[in-house]
């Protein structure tokens, strides 16, 4: 690493970067890059790679769930004789697939992939900074993420298989190698991978916060920040406050596993032996885990909401409705997300009074969420909607956010949770909000900012096909699951044929699996479009969507330092679309106020 180009990113306004034409080596440009735009691409492509693995895993176990006991040559082809002898998925392998699918999706795609990509790309560009506050930490953040991805994928191939206790890895199941084969080496690797992942998250998060607070360009007051930046700021704060708790949670588990402590273990007799553990509490783990785990849900969701706010306003050619309420609801959701973790634990034997408190706090989240949903719809109302693929995904996001959010009301209600806890109802709920809403936010963001990232356009028609197939299949997979869950079908079951009372609802399972396979295959459209367009896409113009935010004032061809001349000054908020005082239907933030115009 040469230090010559780690120059004064932070010096901000007026510093002329145009004359820096030093040669960058291939390695420092594409591999150990400290440029936020390159790092963002690295995050995105790694996340796409991880996403493909996670989708494949889900198709493997959907085959078993759709047609239990049926043999599929494909499974044997991919998983080999050990995990799928004769093409029949092995029971432990099934649990490993479920676990790693969840882990990759939640952490690697929706946290690393979503925040990593868009925080890196958008924060410096939208606040008007030359780069992140610390390019070096940013680079470390990506490489810690890459390392943890490699370890997580490698854990699929170790003796005993990958971690298999569910992505929530509750001890004692995850703590005792005697309890299941996946709790051996696979679990150790899972924990090590997560430690690197968290390091990546923290390095990234600190950088995002510092950049947003300190490196805004002249005129970019907090109230003029685009909602994407607000969402990414709150996301980063949530991450910085909650991930350290997960580290301690994971380290204590490592110690229980390897060094004979008993933080989470007590009174256990397994494999013919009474273990020398007393006084620990498995419930302690759950408290620590969900103290991260619930903010994590919003770490996943908020960036998607921020992205869609931006895309919806741009393509409806209307200011986002209720900017202040949108910011307020992001802050409220962020705050509340820290005091609701207990709603994952109503049936753990936690004090019922404590349960009541969590019912109260959890249901409060419905209020800012409803405000957001209504504001999106009002933004579209009387707009002039341009259906770009990014816009379609953002509208899809609003639909799934509403649909998935509403079932959360039932799960938040402890008295009702008793009967649907850990059933497919929960699977339906969180897949519609995370598997659909958050993913839609991510995909919408990719379609929208692809021209900024790669200087090329993605194909619109393929984008349309991708959206409609994904929307129909996504709902086709997850909506019927509500009914499977209400009928009493637990999640993480390998086979339901042992239960007579569930058989009547099990004819939904093959349907769900077909939708999953088609929906999974449809992602090939996106992947093809993505990689093909990087090389052969139509060249992009500087501001293809007629957008107001600062990133579209930078040249199409990326340069280090973002703006060739001085950093532009900001004179207005980001949402002056169809302002009656102007002829154009958009007014970029850099346009000075007209005499007599009321600024925002």
């Amino acid at each position: 690493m040469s230090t010559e180009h780690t120059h004064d990113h932070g010096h901000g306004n007026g510093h002329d970067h145009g004359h820096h034409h030093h040669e960058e080596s291939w390695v420092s440009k594409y591999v150990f890059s400290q440029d936020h735009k390159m790092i963002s691409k690295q995050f995105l492509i790694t996340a796409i790679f991880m996403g493909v693995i996670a989708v494949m895993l889900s198709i493997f176990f959907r085959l078993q769930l759709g047609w239990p006991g049926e043999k599929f040559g494909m499974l044997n082809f991919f998983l080999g004789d050990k995990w799928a002898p004769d093409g029949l998925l092995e029971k432990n392998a099934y649990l490993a697939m479920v676990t790693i699918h969840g882990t990759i999706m939640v952490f690697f795609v929706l946290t690393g992939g979503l925040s990593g990509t868009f925080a890196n790309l958008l924060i410096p560009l939208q606040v008007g900074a030359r780069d992140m506050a610390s390019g070096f930490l940013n680079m470390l953040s990506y490489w810690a993420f890459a390392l943890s991805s490699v370890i997580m994928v490698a854990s699929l191939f170790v003796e005993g298989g990958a971690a298999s206790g569910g992505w929530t890895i509750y001890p004692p199941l995850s703590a005792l190698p005697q309890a299941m084969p996946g709790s051996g080496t696979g679990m150790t690797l899972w924990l090590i991978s997560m430690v690197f992942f968290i390091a990546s998250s923290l390095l990234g998060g600190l950088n995002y916060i510092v950049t947003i607070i300190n490196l805004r360009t002249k005129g970019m007051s907090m109230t003029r920040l685009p909602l994407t930046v607000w969402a990414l700021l709150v996301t980063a704060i949530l991450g910085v406050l909650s991930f350290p708790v997960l580290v301690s949670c994971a380290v204590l588990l490592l110690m229980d596993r390897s060094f004979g402590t008993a933080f989470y273990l007590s009174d256990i007799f397994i494999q013919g032996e009474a273990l020398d553990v007393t006084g620990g509490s498995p419930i302690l783990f759950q408290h620590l885990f969900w103290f991260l785990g619930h903010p994590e849900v919003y770490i996943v969701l908020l960036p998607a909401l921020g992205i869609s706010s931006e895309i919806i306003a741009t393509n409806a050619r209307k200011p986002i409705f209720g900017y202040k309420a949108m910011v307020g609801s992001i802050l409220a959701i962020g705050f509340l997300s820290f005091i609701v973790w207990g709603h994952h634990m109503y049936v753990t034997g936690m004090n019922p009074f404590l349960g009541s408190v969590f019912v109260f706090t959890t249901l409060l989240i419905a209020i800012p969420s409803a405000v957001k949903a209504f504001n999106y719809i009002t933004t579209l109302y009387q707009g002039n909607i341009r259906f770009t693929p990014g816009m379609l995904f953002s509208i899809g996001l609003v639909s799934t956010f509403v649909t998935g959010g509403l079932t959360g009301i039932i799960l938040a209600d402890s008295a009702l949770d008793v009967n649907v806890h850990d059933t497919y109802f929960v699977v339906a709920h969180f897949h519609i909000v995370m598997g659909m809403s958050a993913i839609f936010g991510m995909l919408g963001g990719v379609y929208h900012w692809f021209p900024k990232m790669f200087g090329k356009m993605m194909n619109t028609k393929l984008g349309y096909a991708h959206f409609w197939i994904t929307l129909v299949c996504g709902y086709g997979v997850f909506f019927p699951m509500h009914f499977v869950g209400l009928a009493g079908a637990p999640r993480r079951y390998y086979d339901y044929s042992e239960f007579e009372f569930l058989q009547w609802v099990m004819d939904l399972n093959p349907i769900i699996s077909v939708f999953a396979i088609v929906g999974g295959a449809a992602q090939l459209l996106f992947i093809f479009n993505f990689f093909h367009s990087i090389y052969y896409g139509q060249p992009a113009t500087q501001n293809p969507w007629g957008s107001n935010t600062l990133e579209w004032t930078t040249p199409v061809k990326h340069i280090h330092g973002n703006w060739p001349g001085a950093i532009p000054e900001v004179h207005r908020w980001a949402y002056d679309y169809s302002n009656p005082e102007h002829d154009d239907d958009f007014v970029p933030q850099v346009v000075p106020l007209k005499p007599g115009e009321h600024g925002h």
Partner: protein
Amino acid sequence: MKLLVILVIALAIIAIVQLSKVYEFTRALRKSKEEEISPADNKLQANLMLVWMFVFFIGTIWLYIRYGHYLPEPASEHGKDVDWLMSLNLWMITVMFFIMNSMLFIVSWKFYYRKDRKARFFAHDNRLEMIWTLIPGITMAFIIVFGLITWNKITGPASADAITVELYSKQFDWTARYPGDNGEFGASSYNLISSDNALGIITKDKIASKIEEIDAEIEKVKASLEENKKLATMPESYVETLQDKIYRLERHKQRILDLGESKLPSGKSNWETGGDDRIAKGEIHLPVGKEIEFIFRSQDVIHSAYMPHFRAQMNTVPGLPTRFKMTPTITTKEMREKLGDDEFNYVLLCNKICGAAHFNMQIDVVVESPEDYEAWLKKQKTFIAQETAPAASPATADTTATPAAGAPIAAATN
């Protein structure tokens, strides 16, 4: 069915390949820019929004009609409250679901881009925003109040004459224990678990025999170490393993010696009341119309006792006994008649991932008249009687069939 599936998948793949080809063609033909959405495209997408809305709603209604009666009527007293609350909530969210989604899709359909029109500059409206902050707020207040009333009913203390039943979980089966004629459970400890004491019930005899067993084991290991001192044939690491084993056995012994005795309300010691506890495997029986208080314990990992027909669920946590109370209201026989299904059985299933055979960790629940229940209970062996004749219980066929090659766990403890 299978053919259909293969057909659908094949068609999907063909469609994708075709689309990719179309892509190449359109690229060559089209002069317009990707970012310029043609009026025709825009109109098409707007119409698709509306089409999708109808498809989505019709699908939803079909699901409600076909699968909306999710479970038979609740077979427990609190289950009625839960179901009432569930219906209320489901109705409310369903209405909101239709309203919000139709607003979204209709608005998207109606306001598609037209060149001659400008969007309305409408940035905020405090009154509107107040309305949609207050309405959810008030609704949530109602939901919270109703929810907590029911929650308090469910979780309140059991009445004094409730029948206590202990459910003990392990990978991958359930064992039930009923207090014997004295009405009180004997104490238990995981340190005393052995092949003839699966629940680790404490009696003076059991303590003595377990300590004897451990002492014998220690002697055996020590003897083999002594042997090695003379011959020095064992590798160092194996010697360490044996020393570690002795250490752990001694700790185990110490934990047993540390077990405390305490007085039960009747004045008896909790080490004396375990002998007449009745132990049932394969089925648990409950009397109709009587309040039952379940005490849940777990031997190895977290499990969850889920009884969907009773709207009841509670995790079983090693080292932390949990409880759940309920009053069954419909006997198995009555439920069979209601459903017209002679085979129907209430079932308790594991609902917390616990290992390879998690998906088949179940036990039948039989609800019957108090007389039948008493008669059944009398037939169950007491702890002492069981010890003298450790016969295979009728349920073993159920549970031992499941652990697969990957899970050699159940065998070790059975």
